[in-house]
């Protein structure tokens, strides 16, 4: 047992590539996934820009609220990143460093205080978001909605108390200060009494004309007050309004995105496994040396495998999309673009598969390797920016850029839905990856036979 153990360690020591693949790579991927999961939905990073002049007090219904406490409370729910300008906030959102940016404009306090007046002006916060895909768009909307709802709930309590005083005034009557004037409000209660007292006795040319005039005047004021009540009630329901601006990203519909993910995952596994296995099979069948002795060049052999992968990936993915179209809508008028996206994705994955096949040299090993690499990379490619720390997301971005999944997903999303990402960049990205992995596969073929 001991000697077997030592033997295995010696083999691992003498097989650095195998060791990296079997030990270091899974650990690295596990760490990335672990961080991504652990940092995911708990505390999203949000850039926070406060444009309210320092020291501005917030007074609602005669009570001064502590802005600093509100800020601390907000930042206990999200990971606040204080920024000094809107441009900085915009840049951070665009780069994915933060999930969104929350901007409190200069007039936020005055508008907030106006809620406690008869001329309310609804305060608005500005939210900058990066909607790279519909999943992220949904995540951002949920987060921001939650935050605003929490703030609104607190404010609505304050405003409701004030509203109650107005309603009491309307009911019982009293004095109201408005624009420097003091108005005497009769109130519904007094009105009822007056009307009840004059109603039975009111003849033609009645001397109670004055009282009647007061009632008419009250009716007018009551109508005006009811006009004011509409925005007031609105402010009670939703005191703070949100103005959302999409800084970058134009997500396709959730259906199109789900189809894109399904199609890209299928495309990836079919193509990578097929090409890797097919190339490794040439060696297992001992045919590689015979073929490349002059019958077929190594580049030509690689080209044939990549072509095989692209053609079959097109067939399989189109069949899958046709099957899905029975249940969800697929815009087949975009067939040309869909075909282009599948072919480009197939090229990237096929070249990647060729590299794996050339490196692994055995069909079983290449299949295992293809799964080991592809699955976590696909998972990581679905991690949203702003949901993990910037340093971790930078690592994830590098991993994404090095593998074809992310670009293929963008290409597929853009091809399936007009509101998806632009196609040009993913196609160029896939072409570059295809060429790079082709060169790497050719280098790996040097020790293939």
């Amino acid at each position: 047992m001991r000697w077997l153990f030592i033997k295995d360690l010696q083999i691992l020591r003498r097989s650095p590539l195998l060791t990296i693949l079997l030990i270091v790579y899974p650990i690295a991927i596990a760490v990335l996934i672990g961080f991504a999961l652990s940092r995911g939905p708990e505390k999203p990073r949000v850039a926070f820009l406060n444009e309210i002049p320092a020291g501005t007090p917030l007074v609602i219904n005669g009570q001064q609220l502590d802005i600093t406490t509100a800020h601390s409370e907000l930042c206990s729910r999200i990971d606040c990143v204080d920024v000094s300008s809107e441009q900085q906030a915009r840049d951070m959102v665009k780069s994915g460093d933060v999930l969104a940016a929350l901007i409190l404009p200069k007039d936020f306090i005055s508008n907030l205080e106006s809620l406690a007046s008869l001329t309310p002006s609804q305060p608005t916060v500005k939210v900058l978001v990066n909607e790279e895909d519909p999943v992220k768009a949904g995540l951002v909307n949920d987060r921001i909605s939650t935050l605003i709802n929490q703030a609104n709930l607190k404010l609505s309590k304050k405003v409701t108390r004030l509203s109650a005083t107005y309603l009491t005034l309307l009911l019982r009557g009293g004095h109201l200060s408005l624009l420097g004037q003091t108005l005497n409000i009769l109130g519904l209660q007094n009105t009822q009494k007056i009307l009840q007292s004059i109603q039975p006795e009111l003849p033609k040319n009645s001397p109670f004309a004055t009282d009647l005039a007061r009632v008419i005047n009250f009716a007018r004021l009551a109508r005006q007050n009811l006009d004011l009540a509409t925005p007031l009630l609105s402010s009670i329901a939703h005191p703070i309004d949100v103005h959302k601006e999409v800084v970058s990203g134009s997500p396709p519909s959730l259906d199109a995105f789900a189809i894109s993910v399904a199609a890209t995952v299928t495309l990836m596994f079919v193509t990578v496994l097929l090409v890797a296995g097919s190339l490794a099979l040439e060696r297992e069948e001992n045919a590689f040396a015979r073929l490349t002795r002059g019958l077929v060049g190594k580049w030509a052999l690689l080209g044939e495998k990549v072509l095989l992968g692209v053609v079959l990936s097109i067939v399989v993915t189109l069949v899958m999309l046709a099957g899905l179209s029975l249940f969800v809508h697929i815009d087949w008028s975009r067939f040309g673009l869909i075909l282009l996206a599948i072919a480009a994705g197939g090229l990237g994955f096929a070249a990647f598969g060729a590299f794996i096949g050339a490196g692994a040299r055995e069909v079983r090993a290449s299949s295992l390797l293809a799964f080991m690499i592809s699955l976590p990379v696909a998972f990581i490619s679905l991690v949203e920016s702003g949901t993990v720390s910037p340093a971790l997301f930078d690592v994830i971005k590098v991993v994404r850029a090095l593998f074809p999944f992310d670009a293929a997903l963008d290409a597929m999303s853009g091809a399936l839905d007009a509101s998806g990402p632009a196609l040009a960049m993913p196609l160029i990205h896939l072409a570059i990856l295809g060429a790079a992995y082709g060169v790497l596969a050719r280098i790996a073929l040097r020790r293939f036979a």
Partner: protein
Amino acid sequence: MNGVEAGGDAVIETRGLAKAFGDREALRGVSFAAHRGELLAVIGPNGAGKTTLLSILAGIRRPDAGSVSRPPGEIGWVPQQAALYRRLTVAENLRLFARLEKVPDPDASVEEMLAQTALEDRRDDQAGTLSGGNQQRINIAIGLLARPAVLLLDEPSAGLDPRQRERLWEFVLGLAGGGTTVIFSTHDLAEAERYGQRLLVLADGENLFDGTPPALHAAVPESGARDFEGAFVAFLRERGH
């Protein structure tokens, strides 16, 4: 070394071939020539450089030094393990390689090879279902598709039972009788003595002997070896291997 000068009818000739893998020298200045219709056996202990020599002759590897004069046209190469697609049928394998070899009439070549290997009745069987001996015959047939002037066989009878060996060598002898130069490597000294018209003895990448089997026996007259194997071992010992 009993060097054989390349005559006018030499179809393949090497001069000073050298090849190293890292610090290990696999071949050290190997020179020889083979002639039309000749059966040349390359023998030697493990790691002597036999497979390296054949792979250089086949054009799979490049020598670090020295040169190879090849005949015009194709050199047939038959690797030790059958290089064919086990999920394709016998006929499909032959047709595929005939097309890759750009043989003028692939179908006719397939029929010819099926006849030569006596595998016509197995033509539609998947290659993987054949015995090792039959797979080796297809392996050789693929090497012969381009009608090469020289056929290189790397341990062609390894793993075959005596009956399969017999049939294989009948086939190879027929090829040599037709004018094909056959260079084969083997560990089986009896086979080398029996079928090799000439022997090339390699040890540690060096060409120690180039001559007929009786000449090798004669080269160690005082060894007292009663058979070819004893003479071969005595020869190597005498040369410090």
